[in-house]
């Protein structure tokens, strides 16, 4: 059997193991181990790799962000930030039709800005918002569905654990990915608010009313959320402005939220010990999958399968957009049965080379020239009048600059290499955000959306079927947003400097 055949056959074998409830990390580890033994014909290579690979996988400076962000999320909960956010949001919009649910979405978005995990956001906001929604006469289905969908904002709005993993797998800049996630995250929150507004009009009995809160009280409540703003601005802003590395940002954020929790009295020896235990469980779960994926991908690289698949798809002449849509649909289907991090770790090493080999035409040579010319003009380049006129004519026509024009403008490094680099980076960021959204949809799609389970466990009175019914509205909004972001990449990329 050829190496390629072994590589290809490992897919059904791996999926078979996973569907037989073998934990995903373990299944990937075993598939990688057995695959390497089959390809090399003995245990020497995989065993030699294991001598250092477990250690080097775990002693990773960039991956150390993940436990830090997880701990930060727990500290934020202990610091009472979920209550503060919900109270402030409810003060402003709670009296509208469906307003308490909208406030829950707003609070989830705010909490997502300091928490990188969907499940943590869903769990902590449910504790705060579910009782309030019941108190004001909201039906079970819309309440649980709102919080399940709101929970996904934890990961859509930066910081985000999934984006960290994606950035490492595709070797992209974490700060730029966080920045790119910002507008789609806000759109997600607005979309969910719109869904609630439509839902309570279709089912008027699903939501009760809440009295107005006086303005003075609203402002007092609003002041209580300042720690969230400070932490978010410090962490995401600091990473983006280059004050510190993403790992340092996560450490500063964890320290800041811990300090706030300590001052608010939420952080005691007992709660600190609990946060260690919860962080330990989630971290170990993620990192065991990371190890399995590293091992499995090491095996795949040995068989050349990812490159072969990418070359084959590239050679078929399919439209890049068709390939992209197929991949996104695949994620939506897989997301019905698998969690988001496992999906990313399992599939990105195969899909990213495929996407990398396709040309979505984001940046043309003319765009690149125009961009560099704008920089040159901003820097105060002086041109002879006739040259200036000809450059302006070329830019107005949107065509590539000629050699003479480039020389006169003193634009450096305009070559095919720069074009490819920018193109590839933009595609990587855009694709990453799209994947982030479609894998997150998996968290709220029946039958095994994790967020649905977590919230259902907290609200035993609401049957799962009611949650399913209401959550489909939110899924529809997610799908609509994916279509929007596929059709208009600029929404995602507009904040990215290049």
């Amino acid at each position, binding site marked *: 059997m050829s190496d390629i055949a072994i590589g290809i056959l490992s897919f059904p074998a791996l999926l078979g193991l996973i569907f037989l409830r*073998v934990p995903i990390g373990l299944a990937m580890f075993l598939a990688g181990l057995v695959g390497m033994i089959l390809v090399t014909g003995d245990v020497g290579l995989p065993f030699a790799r*294991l*001598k250092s690979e477990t*250690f080097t996988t775990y002693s990773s*400076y960039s991956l150390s962000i993940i436990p830090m962000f997880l*701990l930060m999320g727990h500290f934020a909960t202990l610091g009472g930030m979920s209550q503060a956010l919900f109270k402030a949001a409810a003060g402003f919009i709670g009296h509208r039709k469906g307003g308490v649910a909208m406030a829950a979405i707003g609070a989830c978005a705010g909490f997502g800005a300091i928490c990188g995990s969907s499940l943590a956001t869903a769990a902590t906001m449910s504790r705060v918002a579910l009782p309030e929604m019941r108190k004001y006469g909201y039906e079970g289905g819309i309440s649980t569905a709102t919080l399940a969908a709101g929970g996904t904002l934890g990961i859509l709005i930066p910081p985000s654990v999934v984006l960290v993993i994606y950035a490492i797998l595709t070797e992209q800049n974490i700060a730029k990915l966080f920045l790119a996630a910002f507008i789609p995250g806000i759109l997600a929150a607005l979309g969910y608010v719109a869904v609630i507004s439509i839902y309570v009009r279709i089912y008027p009995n699903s939501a009760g009313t809440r009295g107005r809160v006086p303005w003075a009280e609203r402002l007092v409540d609003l002041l209580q959320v300042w720690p969230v703003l400070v932490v978010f601005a410090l962490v995401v802003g600091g990473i983006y402005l280059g004050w510190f590395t993403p790992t340092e940002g996560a450490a500063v954020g964890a320290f800041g939220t811990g300090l706030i929790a300590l001052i608010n009295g939420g952080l005691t020896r007992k709660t600190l010990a609990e946060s*260690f235990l919860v962080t330990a469980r989630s971290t170990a*779960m993620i990192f*065991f999958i990371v190890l399995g994926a590293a091992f499995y991908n090491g095996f795949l690289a040995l068989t050349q399968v990812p490159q072969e698949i990418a070359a084959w798809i590239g050679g078929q002449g399919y439209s890049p957009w068709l390939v992209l849509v197929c991949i996104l649909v695949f994620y939506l289907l897989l997301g019905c049965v698998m969690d988001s991090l496992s999906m990313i770790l399992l599939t990105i090493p195969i899909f990213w080379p495929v996407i990398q080999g396709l040309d979505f035409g984001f940046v043309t040579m003319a765009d690149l020239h125009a961009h560099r010319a704008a920089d040159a003009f901003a820097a105060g380049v002086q041109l002879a009048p006739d040259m200036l006129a000809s450059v302006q004519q070329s830019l107005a026509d949107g065509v590539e600059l000629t050699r003479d024009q480039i020389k006169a403008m003193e634009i450096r490094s305009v070559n095919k290499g720069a074009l490819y680099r920018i193109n590839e980076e933009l595609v990587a960021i855009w694709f990453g955000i799209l994947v982030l959204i479609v894998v997150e949809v998996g968290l709220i799609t029946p039958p095994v959306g994790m967020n649905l389970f977590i919230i259902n466990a907290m609200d035993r009175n609401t049957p799962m079927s009611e949650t399913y019914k209401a959550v489909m509205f939110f899924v529809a909004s997610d799908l609509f947003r994916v279509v929007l972001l596929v059709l208009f990449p600029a929404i995602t990329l507009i904040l990215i400097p290049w």
Partner: protein
Amino acid sequence: MYPAFMKLSRFMAYLGGIMLSGLILLTCLSVLGRSLNGMLHSDFIEGIAPGFAQWAINLGIGPINGDFELIEAGIAFAIFAFMPLCTLSGGHASVDIFTQGMSDRVNRILRLITSLLFAAVFVLIATQLFGGLQTKFRSGQTTFLLEFPLWWAYALSMFAAAVAAVVAVYIAVMRVLETLSGHELLPSETGADH
């Protein structure tokens, strides 16, 4: 036996948590030192108090030397230390939708096989890590900035990985005994609770 192993796993998780907190503090101090240092070197401070920045550096105000290396060594230990608790409490992510419809008997057998595989893999990881430790010990390789021997970091992780292996073997043994005796000996898996 189970309570003792639970205690051990929790103890390891606390150790990992303390290590993680330590690394967070270390990183924050390093960031603080670096920004203070940058501030002291600004034209303004240099103008009113020349030499102050150098004096502060001599006092140790500045980025922590080799913080990067300490994080790499420490985080590996923390992650290995987190493993036993996750494994013992059945926290590893899995897909159970397709097995829900199968009989209890099939599910028990699958659980037994999984626990055996986990034990084998964790023992393999620990023994190979021990091999790696020996290699680093013999080569005497040190880190770049702090120049501490790399085998120290390996030894820390090795210790935690060994505990993870012991816990995984315990689970496998209990699952085998469960199958032989037909009684539940371990609490049923609680699943990942975040």
